[in-house]
């Protein structure tokens, strides 16, 4: 056992036992971040904060929520919203954060794509991030179902039905997921468990993994410059702060994050108090009714782009049923981002504005995602259906062309 001496402070006492000084250095004061970053690099801290907000508000909501189809709707809309002191505040905080977290995730993802942060050496950062995105999606979907409103019920119906498209075991799989032949009480209680326990635990683990993946390749920067972190850190520690290309996570980097967080929280709480309804579909304030289908069924805004890829293929092609093509396209849309590091064939890491063709590709992707999102909510009739079809095809084409485009960029650079 190590030598223990009488400690003169709580810090010293803890340091002898937990080595907190070294821990602090490794995690905070000597965790090096490139200096050349902009506010887009604060999205990680924003996401961590929003996740914290979701966990805390979720715990309060769980005290009053009843996972029973007879009680769920009223426990949310009456007990929590009207009876519990500030229950409405916790619900709005939770509901709005659930929506805003996806906005920040998308900004975070697109930032990574723009600056090439998924490339050589940083593949694991990207993959762990994508795993987080998928798990967040599952958590968002399972949570959306809990108030047992009309839209959440039918969304559950539609989404669980999709698994029926899996070859051979499809029908059995749907029943297994629902725990019943229909979306019913068994479905609600298991989604409750997924939402409040299993998925948050998985997310926490993945956040740990995501942070860890950053330690060895380090964070990318605005010019995608390859920095020798050890040499730059030495410069910083020897007092040459102005010349050093790196800064410590604490307190320099975090001070900028907090400033960005301040602005974000103003925006976020404005939504919570004055515009919460954008995140809560009015149809969801009608209790679930299995006998009445809503006039239009659509998911929350953050799933619209992949939903539109799914239903964009509305006619049979070459003897394959429209539904099956849609499912394949849907699976493609949700899986393709995982292999992005290998689709990008450019051997150098550069921001998009230094890769002419990739730059065009990136903005086409952004425009296509917005078009898919907007048309994902509109009724799929007439021209809308065709816009959806072409946008879905464009989405797939963009990823098919990516290896060629990135290779061409590299060649042109010589």
């Amino acid at each position, binding site marked *: 056992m190590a030598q223990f001496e009488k400690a003169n402070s709580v810090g010293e006492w803890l340091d002898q036992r937990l080595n907190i000084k070294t821990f602090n250095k490794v995690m905070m004061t000597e965790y090096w971040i490139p200096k050349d970053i902009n506010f887009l690099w604060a999205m990680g801290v924003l996401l961590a904060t929003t996740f914290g907000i979701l966990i805390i508000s979720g715990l309060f909501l769980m005290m009053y929520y009843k996972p029973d189809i007879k009680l769920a709707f009223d426990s949310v809309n009456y007990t929590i919203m009207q009876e519990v002191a500030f229950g409405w505040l916790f619900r709005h905080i939770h509901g709005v954060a659930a929506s805003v977290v996806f906005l920040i995730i998308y900004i975070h993802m697109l930032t990574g794509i723009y600056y090439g942060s998924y490339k050589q050496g940083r593949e694991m950062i990207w993959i762990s991030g994508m795993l987080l995105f998928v798990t967040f999606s599952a958590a968002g979907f399972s949570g959306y179902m809990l108030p047992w409103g009309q839209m959440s019920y039918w969304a559950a119906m539609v989404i669980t039905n999709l698994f029926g498209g899996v070859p051979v075991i499809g029908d059995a799989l749907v029943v297994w997921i629902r725990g019943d032949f229909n979306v019913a009480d068994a479905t609600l209680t298991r989604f409750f468990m997924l939402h409040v326990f299993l998925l948050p635990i998985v997310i926490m683990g993945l956040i740990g993994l995501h942070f860890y993946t950053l330690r060895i390749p380090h964070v990318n920067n605005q010019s995608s410059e390859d920095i020798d972190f050890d040499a730059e850190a030495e410069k910083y520690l020897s007092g040459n702060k102005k010349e050093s290309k790196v800064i410590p996570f604490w307190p320099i980097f975090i001070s900028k994050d907090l400033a960005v967080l301040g602005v974000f929280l103003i925006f976020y709480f404005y939504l919570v108090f004055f515009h919460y309804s954008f995140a809560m579909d009015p149809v969801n*304030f009608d209790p679930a009714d299995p006998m009445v289908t809503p006039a239009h069924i659509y998911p929350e805004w953050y799933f619209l782009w992949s939903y539109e890829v799914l239903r964009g293929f509305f006619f049979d092609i070459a003897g394959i049923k429209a539904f099956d093509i849609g499912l394949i396209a849907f699976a493609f849309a949700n899986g393709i981002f995982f292999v992005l590091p290998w689709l990008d064939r450019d051997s150098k890491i550069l921001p998009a504005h230094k890769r002419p063709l990739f730059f065009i590709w990136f903005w086409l992707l952004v425009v296509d995602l917005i078009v898919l999102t907007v048309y994902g909510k509109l009724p799929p009739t007439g021209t809308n259906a065709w816009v959806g079809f072409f946008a879905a095809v464009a989405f797939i084409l963009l990823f098919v062309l990516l290896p060629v485009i990135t290779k061409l960029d590299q060649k042109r650079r010589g």
Partner: protein
Amino acid sequence: MRELKILAVVVVLTLITYWGVEPFAHSQMHPQVDPVNYNFEEADRATSKEAVEKATKALAEAEKKADEKAIKGAKTDLEAAQTFEKTINEFWDANKEAIAATPNVANGEALVTANCTACHSIESKGFPKIMDDATAAGAYGVSTPDLGSSGKIYSKEYLVAFIKNPALGSKVSHKFTDGRVHPMPAYELMNTPQEIADMVAYLQSIAPKEMTNKEVFVDACQRCHGLKYADMQKRTMGAFSPADDITKYMGKLPPDLSQYIISRGEDSLGKFINDPQKLLEGTAMPRVGLNQESQAQVIKYLEEVGDSKKAQREELGPKFLIYLVIFAIFAFLWKASQWRDIH
């Protein structure tokens, strides 16, 4: 500067997406309808004319496509719309005399007592319910309203129209075809316009001057609709008519309205109550006929019940935001102090 440019790009793209999935999408999904109009005569003449125009257009389109079946369907629709326009215009022409008549309240009292109290209570004048709500609903499909407040919550023009012909007055004549009749008889067959004017004048004379929002809701809506969040503990705010009877009468159980202020919103509720046919063509819900003041009271009550924390929300919101602005200012100052010797 560069960061502000990036921020501008992020904000603009976010706003475009927001506009697309919220205001734009909702404008595409919900029908555009005429604004609320409490002049029911004017509203009826206008909407029936619009229906004819719409049917004419549909027929023209069907003819362009030369689809026999569609043309036949469109022709039937157009004939129905024209017939209804004629009926409703004649109906309002006929109402003019009763609306303009100089009424005799005493005669009205005699007529109401003789004609109405067989089915309706007027508790304030000593006419109790003859049947309880369940029995009345069993007999008529829906429990019968107390007439004590009718003269206050409905306009004179509406009362005249309704007493003369309940199905046309409340815009549900489409429900009473093939031998089905409105449970309340049409008094145009039994009474002169003068007598109807007298009855309306009597109802107006006995109506209370003031009513609470809740009282208006109870008299105007609760025969069919429950509002369970108004009294979750004692459950006294269920619909008066038993579910089975009212379902049979309306074709569908009228929904509980507890969350309608949120699921439908003030504007949409106003248009719907004013004329259910506008937003939900063919619905069994009658035009209740509320005047402007009473309709506002009903909507206010739905808000008091369904969005009871609105005041608290609006009070707390600005305080939260002020705190956050201060937090952001300090965060920026701290950032500036930390980064001073970095650049």
